[in-house]
């Protein structure tokens, strides 16, 4: 986990997506995050939750929440796909992304990381293609690794001469150089250019270093060179190389074996016994030790000590047979899938098909399954293991969703009921003229009000009685106006004048107050209408964003639930297949070991038989079983 975070940071830095720290002792410059949600994706990535980061990145992209970071977001997605082992998808993203808009250095680094992953997964040709897309210079450390990567890929593809050309002219001070030299040496030897290859291997084999990793490489180089000479029949040249290999290092067994052969090849059989006997005391699981079990009696036989030779052959046969039996059992158990149960001795019924791949080197008390040690460290196995763990993680993620789906289903049902009641009402309201009608009324009222103000129509604001009286007064006035001008009429007109005056006076007095009241009422009406309008809009908007029917959500939930189920089945099948593949790798290796033992047994039997024959032919007193 921590390692992943480091890689993630490295990747982001390489992709130019991290803020660079200014050399000046100022504050860190503000990052260029302009969309909060992009910042959220960055945060999630920095914390190490790659899968969650990718989920959010894709979701926010779909919701268009990161408009200022489209290019960066797409690059980051590519990087995350890479991190999560989906190099096909990453490759697709990078390819479509790396247009002229992006700086060349970013492009180059993206291709470099992609090449690295493809190489690790065994797609050497694709790795080379990616490397060829790098333009311009990389950082020095990356540039060195790039050459190393390219050379290795070429060698895997048996294009040795190109590798030779590439590495031959490379000057560097990094440790990558040593690895490259080693690979070049090996490549040359395999191309039957021993003298050339020897030069390179010798260079690596004579480095002065205290670095543990480089010391191991140095051992490998000397070992390879020694064996190369041996195979070429030049035992004398082989010896000094093999003697350079550390006695307590990981290559010591094979070096001892080779040294013995070098000595034997030059007729120094007695001296050859020395390294071989040393080997004979070591763990029989080591292939070199197994061969020593035969080499020792061979030497004795060469020296004429047939009795001892026979003893050693017999002991070898016994040991080999036992060992072969153990391997057979291990193979059977792996095939059964029950090696795990045996290892841990648990009766836990939870899935017998558990992984048995175990970091044995990390444990002080390794169980018998250390047969598998050589392959556990192997590349194919490690990649397969990574896949298996990834699948398990993804599976548990999907499980969590499964639980949620049921809850969402319930939520939808509840909402459906609620919506079922409300939506028709809301729709009814929205489609009605209610608001428009109210607005129309208001306009009318305002118009009327303005008229009253303009005309100073005091009567209009009177109480109902006053308005009635006023009407009456006006009526009578009109009637009196039409009547003949006599005394009676004049008196009536006078009286009316009085009444009208009083009435008018009352109305007028109250007018201003009433006007003010009316105005206020109107204003309040306005306010209410504005609020109603806003609310109307909100309801409209909410209605628009609500699913057309809640059936929409229900459909989505159904579809997703189905996809979940299908995917979980596929995941299960893939995990199973991966497990089987890992088992196959292990069994393959074990069978190879078994075969070697069987071959050795045959060899031992022949040799032993020859000794007995010889003893039988010999005159009595000489040699003997």
């Amino acid at each position: 986990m921590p390692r992943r975070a480091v890689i993630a940071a490295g990747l982001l830095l390489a992709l130019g997506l991290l803020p660079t720290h200014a050399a000046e002792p100022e504050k860190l410059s503000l990052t260029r995050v302009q969309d909060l949600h992009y910042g959220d994706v960055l945060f999630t990535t920095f914390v190490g939750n790659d899968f969650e980061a990718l989920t959010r990145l894709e979701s926010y992209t779909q919701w268009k929440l990161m408009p200022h970071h489209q290019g960066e977001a797409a690059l980051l997605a590519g990087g995350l796909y890479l991190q999560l082992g989906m190099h096909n998808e990453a490759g697709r993203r990078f390819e479509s992304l790396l247009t002229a808009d992006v700086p060349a250095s970013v492009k180059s680094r993206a291709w470099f990381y992609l090449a690295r992953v493809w190489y690790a997964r065994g797609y050497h040709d694709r790795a080379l293609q990616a490397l060829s897309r790098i333009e311009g210079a990389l950082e020095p450390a990356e540039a060195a690794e790039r050459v190393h990567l390219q050379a290795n890929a070429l060698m895997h593809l048996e294009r040795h001469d190109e590798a030779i050309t590439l590495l031959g002219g490379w000057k560097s001070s990094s440790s990558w150089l040593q690895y490259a030299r080693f690979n070049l040496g090996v490549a040359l030897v395999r191309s039957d250019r021993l003298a050339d290859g020897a030069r390179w291997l010798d260079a690596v084999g004579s480095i002065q270093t205290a670095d543990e990793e480089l010391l191991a490489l140095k051992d490998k180089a000397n070992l390879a060179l020694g064996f190369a000479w041996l195979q070429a029949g030049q035992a004398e040249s082989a010896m000094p190389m093999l003697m350079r290999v550390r006695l307590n290092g990981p290559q010591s067994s094979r070096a001892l074996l080779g040294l013995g052969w070098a000595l034997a090849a030059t007729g120094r059989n007695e001296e050859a016994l020395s390294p071989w006997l040393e080997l004979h005391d070591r763990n029989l699981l080591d292939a070199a030790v197994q061969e020593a079990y035969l080499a020792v009696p061979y030497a004795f036989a060469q020296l004429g000590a047939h009795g001892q030779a026979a003893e050693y052959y017999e002991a070898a046969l016994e040991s080999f047979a036992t060992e072969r039996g153990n391997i057979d059992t291990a193979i059977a158990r792996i095939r059964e899938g029950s090696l795990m149960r045996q290892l841990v001795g648990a009766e836990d019924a939870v899935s017998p098909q558990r992984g048995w791949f175990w970091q044995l080197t990390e444990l002080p008390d390794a169980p018998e399954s250390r047969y598998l040690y050589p392959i556990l460290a192997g590349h194919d196995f490690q990649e397969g293991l990574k896949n298996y763990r990834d699948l398990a993680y993804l599976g548990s993620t999907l499980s969590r969703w499964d639980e949620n789906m049921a809850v969402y289903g319930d939520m939808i049902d509840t909402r459906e009921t609620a919506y079922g009641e409300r939506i028709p009402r809301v729709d009814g309201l929205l489609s009605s003229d209610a608001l428009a009608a109210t607005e129309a009324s208001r306009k009318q009222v305002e118009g009327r009000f303005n008229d009253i103000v303009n005309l100073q129509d005091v009567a209009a604001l009177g109480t109902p009685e006053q308005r009635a009286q006023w009407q009456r007064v006006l009526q009578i006035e009109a009637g009196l106006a039409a009547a003949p001008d006599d005394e009676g009429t004049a008196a009536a007109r006078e009286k009316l004048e009085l009444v009208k005056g009083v009435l008018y006076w009352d109305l007028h007095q109250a007018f201003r107050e009433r006007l003010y009241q009316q105005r206020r009422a109107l204003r309040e009406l306005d306010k209410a209408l504005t609020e109603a309008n806003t609310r109307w809009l909100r309801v409209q908007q909410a209605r628009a964003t609500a699913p057309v029917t809640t059936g929409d959500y229900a459909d989505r939930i159904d579809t997703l639930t189905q996809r979940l189920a299908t995917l979980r089945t596929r995941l299960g099948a893939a995990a199973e297949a991966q497990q089987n593949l890992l088992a196959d790798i292990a069994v393959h290796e074990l069978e190879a070991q078994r075969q070697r033992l069987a071959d050795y047994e045959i060899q031992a039997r022949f040799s032993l038989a020859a000794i007995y024959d010889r003893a039988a032919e010999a005159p009595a007193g000489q040699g003997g079983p």
Partner: protein
Amino acid sequence: MLWLAAGLVVAAASGAAASSHRLTGQSAPDFALKATSGTNFRLSEYRGEVVLLTFWGSRCGQCPAQLSAVSRLVDTYGAAGLAALAVNVDDDQLAAAEFAVAHPVSFPVLLDPDKAVAKAYRVDNLPMLLLIDRAGIVRHVHRDHRSGDDKAWLARIRQLLDE
């Protein structure tokens, strides 16, 4: 497979006091707590490792022995991906801190005075130990601690480390 198995109803294994618990087979609830060292720790940051999560109190007699046992396991298997977190549920954080000083262990000792995490994990016994796998699922729960229990855990731990 892992998730199928989690869904299956599995009888509790024989042997040491592995008991059934509502969280077995479920995702371990995430949380963050402050350790006696002052640093905060979050469970989800341990994803990818096998986690021994143990709840303890300074007044629980079996707890010191369990914490030592867990510490030994972490020393041995740490490099292979085993981690541990001890959550103390005392009201009095001082007692917890003193205990931590008196019994140093090689993993964080976290303080949960509000008992919010203990509640989320339905701790009904002290000590209570949960084994959480690399994907964050609770796989085994042990209540109490008797000498030799760590041997029983060892088997399960190695199984989980295998994954």
